[in-house]
């Protein structure tokens, strides 16, 4: 059976997925981003700062991340080796709030409504279904022509996600812009008071989403050891679910691991045996709290080496391929050749050392050896199950928000609004520069090459390019997976492949980012050698 999901709702941008299934199992999956905007033509011939500024419009979800990745590249062009500690701290604070705001948006607006898919009506207990509908229903939702109002958690989250943005605005003004040598803004004197107040509110929100005071959670997970953290999570399952917080409820009913009869088996889907990649986040005095690295699905760690990143476009709507990175120029195909076949997407395929990698919260926390996520990963390994799954991706996102919230508390206390936020950058002294940044969705890299003081090549590899690329982890996760609720246990209904949708959305794909820039004559290896 050939199933086409087009357009996929509740993801950023335009996305299409083709599934070829047999007996309700996906045999072949092809994920396409279906819009080309081609920003590179805007960036070329611009002054580098202006070009980096334009990249913040690649994506409406994560403009801040693009600004900081661009700033990293500008730093190198201007010969700035290290930023003042105060600037680094401000960046951490912004990144922390950005993670929280983005993850809330993903969880509540984009993913949790998946749990009220009509496929679950007759499959799960009525009491649980009513609970899910009450919490997570999206707007304008109808079942059997009956209007269902948006869930109460959904409406609350609208407010919560906004607070993270407000904190960033308090610190950086209306928007964050890339600037070489630090920040282009000076925080106001009283920003600490406001930041503390917002942080308090955000954490109160997270506690109520969690159903447990956040400090208690952090003490038992992030500040504990892997075994202890997993035990804590599994022991949560003592209460009646109507009294649980949203995250607690998901943690308990999401996975078969918890052993409940009414679990949704989400730890069994969206699995792959590929690799994980992170470029490191939260720089504290030159040391990354989330360390950079490359990890296999057997949890073997290797240091991160930027030289190993390459890209190819064999299956994308471009002419040119990896075999001719230096002389071939990649151009979008002419109109008559754009149709779904051998080539089927506008996303290119980045690889690390030739390997397919997953990026995002799960990769970051696995590589950082965060106790809860590492503990769960080991638990799954012990049961001979893959580490990556829909459940793990969501739990990682939840955990990352809480850890970021915990770290933010220290940073805000430490923050001095009268500190030094920039070094005077030198004139443009280099012609090549790159910047790496952990966006909420994963590794983001900007590479700039100059000629006569203007941009001759601006290349960007975004998180979604890694995850959604042809042959990438999303396709690998779909292949071999059942398509219907609870792994087809209750029959196969090809007209509503709910598990496939869970898997696609669990990566939080951001197609606006992924298809944005067509690179060029050079590959990244040459750019920074």
């Amino acid at each position: 059976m050939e199933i086409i999901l087009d357009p996929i709702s509740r993801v950023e941008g335009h996305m299409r997925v083709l599934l070829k299934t047999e007996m309700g199992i996906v045999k072949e999956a092809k994920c396409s981003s279906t819009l080309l905007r081609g920003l590179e033509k805007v960036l070329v011939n611009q002054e580098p700062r202006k070009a980096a500024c334009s990249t913040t419009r690649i994506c409406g979800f994560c403009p801040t991340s693009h600004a900081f990745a661009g700033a990293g590249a500008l730093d190198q062009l201007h010969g700035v080796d290290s930023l003042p500690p105060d600037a680094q701290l401000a960046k951490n604070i912004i990144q922390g709030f950005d993670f929280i705001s983005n993850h809330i948006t993903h969880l509540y607006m984009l993913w949790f409504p998946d749990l009220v898919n009509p496929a679950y009506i007759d499959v799960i207990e009525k009491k649980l279904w009513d609970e899910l509908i009450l919490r997570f229903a999206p707007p304008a939702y109808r079942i059997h022509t009956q209007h269902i109002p948006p869930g109460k958690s959904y409406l609350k989250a609208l407010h919560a996600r906004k607070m993270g943005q407000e904190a960033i605005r308090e610190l950086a003004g209306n928007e964050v812009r890339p600037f070489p040598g630090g920040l282009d803004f000076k925080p106001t004197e009283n920003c600490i008071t406001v930041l503390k107040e917002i942080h308090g509110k955000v954490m109160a929100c997270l506690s109520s989403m969690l159903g447990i005071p956040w400090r208690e959670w952090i003490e038992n997970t992030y500040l504990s050891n892997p075994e202890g953290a997993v035990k804590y999570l599994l022991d949560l399952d003592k209460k009646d679910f109507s009294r649980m917080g949203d995250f607690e409820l998901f943690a308990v009913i999401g996975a078969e691991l918890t052993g409940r009869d009414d679990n949704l088996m989400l730890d069994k889907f969206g699995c792959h045996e590929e690799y994980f990649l992170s470029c490191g986040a939260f720089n504290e005095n030159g040391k990354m709290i989330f360390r950079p690295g490359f990890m296999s699905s057997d949890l073997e760690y290797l240091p991160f080496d930027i030289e190993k990143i390459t890209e190819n476009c064999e299956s994308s709507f471009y002419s040119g391929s990896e075999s001719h990175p230096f002389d071939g120029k990649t151009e979008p195909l002419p109109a008559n050749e754009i149709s779904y076949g051998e080539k089927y997407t506008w996303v290119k395929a980045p690889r690390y050392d030739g390997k397919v990698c997953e990026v995002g919260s799960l990769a970051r926390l696995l590589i950082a050896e965060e106790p809860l996520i590492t503990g769960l990963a080991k638990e799954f390994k012990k049961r001979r199950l893959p580490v990556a799954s829909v459940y793990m991706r969501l739990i990682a996102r939840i955990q990352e928000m809480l850890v970021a919230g915990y770290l933010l508390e220290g940073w805000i206390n430490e923050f001095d609004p009268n500190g030094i936020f920039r070094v005077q950058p030198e004139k443009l002294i280099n012609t090549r520069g790159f910047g790496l940044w952990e966006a909420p969705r994963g590794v983001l890299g900007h590479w700039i090459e100059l000629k006569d003081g203007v941009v001759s090549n601006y290349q960007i590899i975004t998180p979604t390019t890694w995850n959604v690329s042809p042959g990438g982890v999303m396709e690998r996760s779909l292949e071999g997976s059942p398509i219907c609720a609870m792994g087809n246990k209750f029959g196969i209904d090809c007209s509503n492949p709910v598990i496939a949708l869970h898997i696609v959305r669990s990566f939080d794909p951001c197609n606006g980012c992924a298809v944005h820039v067509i690179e060029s004559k050079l590959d990244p290896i040459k750019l920074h050698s």
Partner: protein
Amino acid sequence: MTKSDVLSKQDCLEAISTLGVVGFLEKYRAELIQELKSVKQKLVWIHGAGCSGCTMSFLNCDHELLGTILRNECIIYHKTLLEQSGFFLGGIPVRVPEINIEYYLKDIEKTGGYVLVVEGALVEGPDNSGKYCLIGGETVKERIVKAANKAKVIMTLGTCASCGGIPGDRRSENVVRDFPGLIFRGVADRTIILNEHGITKPVVDLPGCPPKPEQILAMLALLLLDKLQFPEDSNMLDKYLRFKMIKGG
């Protein structure tokens, strides 16, 4: 306009012109919530070549007013928010509006008379084929034109929808043609592009990258609550089709 209106058109316009959009939303908050609760107008929100930044800005507006709009039974079509996706089985669309967003949109389009919000540029490239953006097997150009044909009023949200914005920001003339706005190709050329596609419905422009949350909310409220009606109120638009009191930016 009916007599039961809690808030008169005059009040709205006066408040916006004297207090600005923020003041307007603050002053008439309770009244707006009450009216928005029972509004029957449908809202269709279509994405062209854009970054969803305008959607994010929209989600950043006053959460109580926003919640009221989202809680309303009136039909909203918005790809980033809805439960359903597009489904094709063996090439044929699944005919259940509860599951298939495509079918759901067709249902709304059949009745027509909705407020259409377009975010992102119209995609005409390459070579006028529109294939740089395909959704549900058709080009986004076809989708926007189809939806615009049945709309009561069209609101072009953000600079991309208005004149091409970021994707349309090109030096070379032939690339500008690939990603025009719905209204203008650029500042110099003032032909309304929707007219070229045979659309004569009233258009209100709200440019900005992105427009402020309050501006989006106030503008949407005016349109959903019929406080602005066309062609009667056409004189309230300037020569670039922006509502004179909320110009965006």
